[in-house]
């Protein structure tokens, strides 16, 4: 099946003596937005970090467009996949411009900065201010901008709306949708908010290091189990 942009098969990861991920099968097509939901400690962050080459793969494979990236260094992987971590996703004492500048993948075409500022006009105002002076929402916008600046076709977003107000959460998620559509990027986004199902095509449920449920977002949105257990919503 060569039409997956990113694919994981039987992925098994250990950290120290603990088995953190087991037999993960996950794939993303080109231009798709896929959600990864699950409780704290399920292994979402570990999964992302493994894809980026940070943790060692014990069993299984990770492939981009059919070619394996298992065992590849983060430096090389980061040219194809851009990950925005859960916390500390910006350089606090560099300015907005500097943050974007060093994120740019210089081997590709130049300044995407204009496009980023179009999507996030608030950043343009703060262009010479240090990232630590920005509000939570603005910092998240900057992080997204930095992820974009890398010009990768795959984006991994680890709980991008963590700690944000409901209004900000909606705005960020909308921006992500806009980015994904506009630049035809494949996005894997881990979240705890049910709103993520509105912007994704498919969803995987990760619990205890294993994929428990998967399917189309529209269908699973109505599923009682999902709503109650994973999204904490009253049924």
């Amino acid at each position, binding site marked *: 099946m060569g039409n997956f942009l990113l694919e994981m098969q039987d992925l098994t990861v250990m950290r120290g003596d603990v088995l953190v991920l087991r037999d993960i099968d996950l794939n993303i097509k080109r231009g798709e937005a896929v959600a990864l939901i699950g409780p704290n400690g399920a292994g979402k962050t570990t999964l992302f970090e493994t894809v*980026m080459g*940070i943790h060692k793969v014990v069993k299984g494979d990770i492939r981009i467009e059919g070619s394996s990236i298992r065992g590849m260094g*983060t*430096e090389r992987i*980061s*040219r194809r996949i*851009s*990950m925005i*971590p859960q916390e*500390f*996703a*910006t*350089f*606090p*004492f*560099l300015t907005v411009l*500097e943050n974007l*500048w*060093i*994120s740019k*993948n*210089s081997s590709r075409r130049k300044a995407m900065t204009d496009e980023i500022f179009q999507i996030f006009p608030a950043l343009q105002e703060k262009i010479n201010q240090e990232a630590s002076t920005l509000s939570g929402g603005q910092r998240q916008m900057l992080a997204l901008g*930095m992820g974009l600046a*890398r010009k990768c076709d795959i984006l991994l977003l680890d709980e991008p709306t963590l700690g944000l107000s409901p209004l900000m959460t909606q705005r960020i998620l909308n921006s992500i949708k806009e980015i994904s559509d506009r630049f035809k990027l494949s996005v894997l986004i881990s979240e705890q908010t049910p709103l993520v199902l509105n912007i994704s095509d498919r969803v995987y449920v990760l619990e205890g290091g294993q994929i428990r449920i998967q399917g189309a977002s529209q269908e699973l949105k109505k599923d009682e189990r999902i709503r109650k257990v994973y999204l904490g919503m009253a049924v």
Partner: protein
Amino acid sequence: MVYDIMITALSLAGIYFLISFGVTLLYGVGGFPNLAIGPIGLTGAYVTCSALRANLNVGVCLFLGLGTAVLVGVLIQKFVVEPLFNSLGGGDRGRIFVIYGTFGLCLLFPAILQNVFKTTMMNVRLPSLGIYKILHTSITGYQLLSIGIALALFVVPHFIFTRTKGGTKVRGVTQNAFLSRLIGVNVLRIYTVTAGIAAATAYIGAILWGEIFSLELGSGTMFTLYGFMISVMGGLGSIYGALLVSIILGLSTSATSFLIGGVFEHIITTLILILVLIFAPRGLIPTKREV
């Protein structure tokens, strides 16, 4: 007499800055408190001295010494500092073990050096760079050199760190190493290069110190100690702070030795260290580090 004190002060400041530059850089970029930096520079200096005694070409001697220092520095970074730091998950606990490990090396180096070079004291016999008349007094070529190199070592990094993309990336590494890795920065390579530069500056400092004073087995530990004192006073990881403190210490040491007599300079220096830390616990120009 005032000019004598000033000239000596400035050249001393230059050497102090050189010695502390490695400590400051390595701690600033990677958070590694490498106490072996002094002995590393000393080792290179010993190699150069031995080569000079064997009457090899001056350039070759310098090259050999510099190469040795950089090689040893990088090896220690890769095989002692980084493993120790990571073995405890990094952060402050990792740092304490790096301190233990590199201080252990400080104990080890004199033994090795003595065995290899079969001597305790070394005199640096570099060709004279002349003496120049300046401001009612004179200054040797090497004193000028120490001032010049220190200045260059201050101006050039400032430019690199603020104006170039690579330098800004390094600043990024000091603030968030993990994120740097994710955006494709080869953090390990940066640490290696930093260790090499630190070793090189320690070597230059040691050579100049040896030229103006003399070198012995214990000098390595002394360089480390001074390097750390200056670095801590200036604000660990702050190059501007280290420069400021180097100047202050250069003045105090020079004034003490001209006015009171050499033996007290270390005591005065320690007193200044305590005073500075009492009134400015984070150093004179503290850096912001995101651990």
